[in-house]
């Protein structure tokens, strides 16, 4: 079952309050049949633990890697993914969508 946004953002707050480095990734734009709607969140801690989803699986790995960099340098950035490329196809996503994800550190 998908975690609700309530759980996701509450978890980010808990992690940060526990002293962990935390980043929040948010789907800010989609084109075509992207798997997760605009506003969906994925939260990541410095060890790569995460909760939530921005794509239903296909680009989470890349977002988590970038998020750990964001936690490191504190600079927010926007990532763009076409989820119709060869990799996405191989992992079973044939939706042909594109998404833009904003990743920011919780200070």
């Amino acid at each position, binding site marked *: 079952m998908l975690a609700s946004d309530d759980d996701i*953002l509450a978890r980010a707050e808990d992690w940060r309050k526990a002293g962990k480095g935390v980043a929040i990734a948010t789907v800010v734009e989609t084109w075509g049949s992207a798997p997760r709607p605009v506003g969906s969140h994925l939260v990541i801690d410095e060890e790569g633990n995460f909760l939530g989803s921005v794509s239903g699986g296909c680009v989470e790995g890349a977002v988590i890697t970038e998020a750990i960099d964001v936690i490191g340098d504190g600079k927010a950035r926007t990532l763009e993914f076409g989820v119709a490329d060869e990799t996405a196809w191989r992992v079973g996503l044939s939706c042909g969508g594109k998404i833009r994800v904003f990743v920011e550190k919780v200070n």
Partner: protein
Amino acid sequence: MKLELLSALNRSRAERRAAILITDTASGEQRLVMGEAIAGDAMEDALDAALRSGKSGNVEFEGKTYFLTVQTPPVRLIVIGAVHISQALAPMAKVAGLDMTIIDPRTAFATPERFPDVKLIAEWPQNVLPGIKLDRYSAIACFTHDPKVDDPALEEALRAECFYVGALGSRKTHARRVERLTAQGFTPEQIARIRAPIGLDIGAVSPAEIAVSVLGEVILALRKKPQRAETAAKAGAAA
């Protein structure tokens, strides 16, 4: 995002308060606007439209792109009366994404057999509603046309400024209702918020058709910005 902003966002959700987080995605700068603070904000029109749609998204403002994270409480529909219309409305409301609760003190009506898939409370509304805490993201529809049951719920709904307040009954029944509420100290402007006869005028006849007309009216109240003419007419009627 600053931790204080994240905490405020989480707190507003727990308290069922609407809020919009505005992010300049180029610079990472952010601010949080609570629902009640939207009127008067520089970005009022965009924020108001976003709140009504309940959807997050990008907006352009003064040459910059901002991402709005829109957080609105789940919409609740409180139905007074475990009647036929409520039986038809329960599955429809569920499909439409409304969190529905039925309240009726008459235990012969309020049985789990008649209402298998919806929250059902066999109590008087005045005993239950304080615990439910009606608010601007709550709709209430009164179907019993028994003043003993409907009136306390209507009074509570008007005080809580529910976005939708509907009551079943003929124009005659409603005229008497208006007299009772006036005697209770409600203003004509407050009373004018009650939609009666209930439901959109689609010529509904059967309980299921009335349920459709009520559901449509709830969605209309939730999503559509009042037209200027309607607002002016209301102000005129209230004066």
